[in-house]
């Protein structure tokens, strides 16, 4: 039996009196493109930090490709790539110096690292600024470089925290093409994003976290069916979609976590 790519049992994280992540049970099968969604402050970043070893859980167990993160963190980290919040870049290196550094941190030899760095910089369209320091890159360029660094060692599981935030359409297309290629070769991708259209287009499975608790998990079709069943069970609900229309991920998401409805008299000065 193939071990799940990511498995979290009873994953909990408390910050003083606040429970940011509350007993999450989650399994991501190998080869899935997995979207981890939630409103602001729901616990997405805290969860991804725990899954990647940046934050210690208060309770619970994490296994990546069957390896316990607490017992053998180095073995886990060898298999994963991470684009964390804040991007983990060293601003006073050039792009190529940074990739050279990261590749060798993952144990690649100098020659392979340099070769892959050249390919990645070309693919990400970053090779025309060989002498610029990362600190002088635009936000989009930094994001592309962080993504290049996360994949330089060919990880089996890739964790991406908001990878498309602040990235233009061209770069976004480049990144998506690279991620699809990785999925095609059996890698697992775990991403958080607020851009639900992208998640809907890319991800086969999603989980939704709300106020620290996992409130939905499954394939998009499973989530859709669940919400549609609930809507049709509610008699006379104005929100229910017509039976022939497929619910979008945004509608599913809003239905699960709830959203604010603008009433007639509210903010009337806006028109």
């Amino acid at each position: 039996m193939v071990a799940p790519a990511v498995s979290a049992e009873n994953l909990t994280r408390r910050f003083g009196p606040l429970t940011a992540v509350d007993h999450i049970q989650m399994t991501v099968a190998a080869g899935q493109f997995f979207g981890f969604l939630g409103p602001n402050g729901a616990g997405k970043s805290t969860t991804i930090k725990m899954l990647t070893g940046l934050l210690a859980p208060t309770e619970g167990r994490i296994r990546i490709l069957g390896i316990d993160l607490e017992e053998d963190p180095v073995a886990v980290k060898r298999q994963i790539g991470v684009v964390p919040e804040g991007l983990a870049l060293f601003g006073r290196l050039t792009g190529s110096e940074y990739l050279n550094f990261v590749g060798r941190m993952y144990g690649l030899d100098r020659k392979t690292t340099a070769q892959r760095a050249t390919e990645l910089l070309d693919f990400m369209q970053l090779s025309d600024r060989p002498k610029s320091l990362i600190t002088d890159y635009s936000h989009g360029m930094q994001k592309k470089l962080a993504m290049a660094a996360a994949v330089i060692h060919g990880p089996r599981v890739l964790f991406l925290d908001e990878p498309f935030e602040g990235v233009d359409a061209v770069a976004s297309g480049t990144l998506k093409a690279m991620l699809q290629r990785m999925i095609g070769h059996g890698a697992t991708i775990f991403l958080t994003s607020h851009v639900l259209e992208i998640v809907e287009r890319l991800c086969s499975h999603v989980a939704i976290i709300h106020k620290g608790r996992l409130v939905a998990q499954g394939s998009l079709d499973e989530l859709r069916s669940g919400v549609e069943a609930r809507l049709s069970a509610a008699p006379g609900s104005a929100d229910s979609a017509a039976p022939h229309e497929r619910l979008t991920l945004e509608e599913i998401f809003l239905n699960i976590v709830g959203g604010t409805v603008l009433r007639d008299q509210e903010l009337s000065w806006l028109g």
Partner: protein
Amino acid sequence: MAGLSAAPPGSAAELRGLSNARMFAIIAELRWHLLRNSLRTIRGRLEVISRGFAAVTMTMLSIGGAIGLAIASYLSVDDHRYSSFALIFWGIFIFWQMYPVLGSAFSAPFEFGSLLRFPMRFSSFYLLNLAFGLLDPVSLVCVLWLFGVFVGVGIADASLLPWAFLALFVFGATNVLLSRTVYVWLERWLAKRRTREALGLLFVFMMICFQFVGPLASRWQRHQAPALGQYAYLFHIANFLPPGLAEAALIDAHRGDQMFAFFSIAAIAAYALGIAALLGMRLQAQFIGENLSEALAPEPAGHQEKVRAAWDIRLLPTPVAAIFEKEIRYLFRSAPIIFTFVMPLFVLAMFRFVPSHGGHESSFLVKAPDWAFPIGAGYALLILANIVYNSFGADGPGLQLYLTAPVRLRDVLLAKNLAHSTVLVLATSGVLITTIVLYRPPSFAVTFGTVMALLFALPLNLAAGNMMSIYSPKKYDFGAFNRQRSTGATAFVSMGVEAVVVGIAAAVFFLTRYLQRVWLAGIIFLPLAAIALAVYWVVLNLAARRVLERREILIAEICRT
């Protein structure tokens, strides 16, 4: 327009422009809210208290200065000794213009242009800039000093008051305009990291060079007669600049040459108008949407090239070699390292050229040049301690990579320590060369003793530094020259370690020198170095475990933006 409905009541279409006074009031209110909110944290409260103390001290000094200037002005007019006016006006002028420039070179400027996203007229933007300049503490101090001059002149000769008022008012206005003009131009240069760092470096070297002025002047006076006559034309030029004109206006008015006094004031006013126009040009560029961002200028095409392989350091495991290379690259692109290299050499040079007493070089190092090398090397270690005791400080968000990559944290610390040791070796080599050039080659016994002393002191510093880097981290910007203090705990511990280490080293050297057996120092340091290395090794493993335990605190402090 077809398809567009009328704007609803209360929308932007009904809003009218704000008056300048209302705009100032809103900004003042914003600053007040920022101040009040900063008091919510202990750090914020301490900052406000320290600023309060600084303000009280500055006020006292300013009032003292104003009284002094009033007396000096009174005496100048009363005794017809006008020469001190030149000193007064040039002093105020230089302080007014130079002090803010030196301050701003060390930090990112306040982005005044950010106010432009609000519906603001150009006149409001211009006036806000001037108001900001006038309310600057330096301007307030200088205005107070000018008031002191006004009072002094008035007491000495009440008939001079109208002329003094005119001259000082126009001179003050010129200074406000000039300081703002200089500031907005600086703002343009400082918006780019490269120019900001270059200016910072320039100012640091200027300040270092200032320290040499006294000793060099003293030597120059001794060795050759100054030929100031050839520079006399500079004084004539100075007479046509605002401080010289302000001085001339007061002197001419006092002598009864009112026409000349008027022309002098008019000339200052002409300067003010010219500067105002320059300021207007710069602000106009900002107003119409000049981009002062850090965005990269496009590089010429054809730069694509293969990435060169990393350094080939076969002695070290791959991740350690990678971190070592990264650290070396990082350190040598940083401002503090320049201090590590320059300051010990500077201190040696200072002691070499220190002013003599009775014409004889009398510094301790000149009398005992053998000690130049150990003192210089020890000083290099002390300066390097700033980096050693906060070794994650400059990593920024990159710190997260150490925690997500398959690398042992012990290796991370080891690689960083190796890089710091390499810097010390290079700095010490520089000290040795300088000692040989400026003094004389140190004896073998002293050289051996110094190297052994460093081998004793460095591991202990690295061990303590590793623990403090984990327990008391502080975000550090290698690109900035502003004073970046370590935490109080780090300062306390590092002082304690240095007191013990330097104390032992000094005691050993003095004892062996007293016994006239300096060669013994190296032998005494040998077992001490072995113990220090063992301590380092034990602490290294302990520290690596602590990094993992304290990763959240590290990330929260170092990765914050």
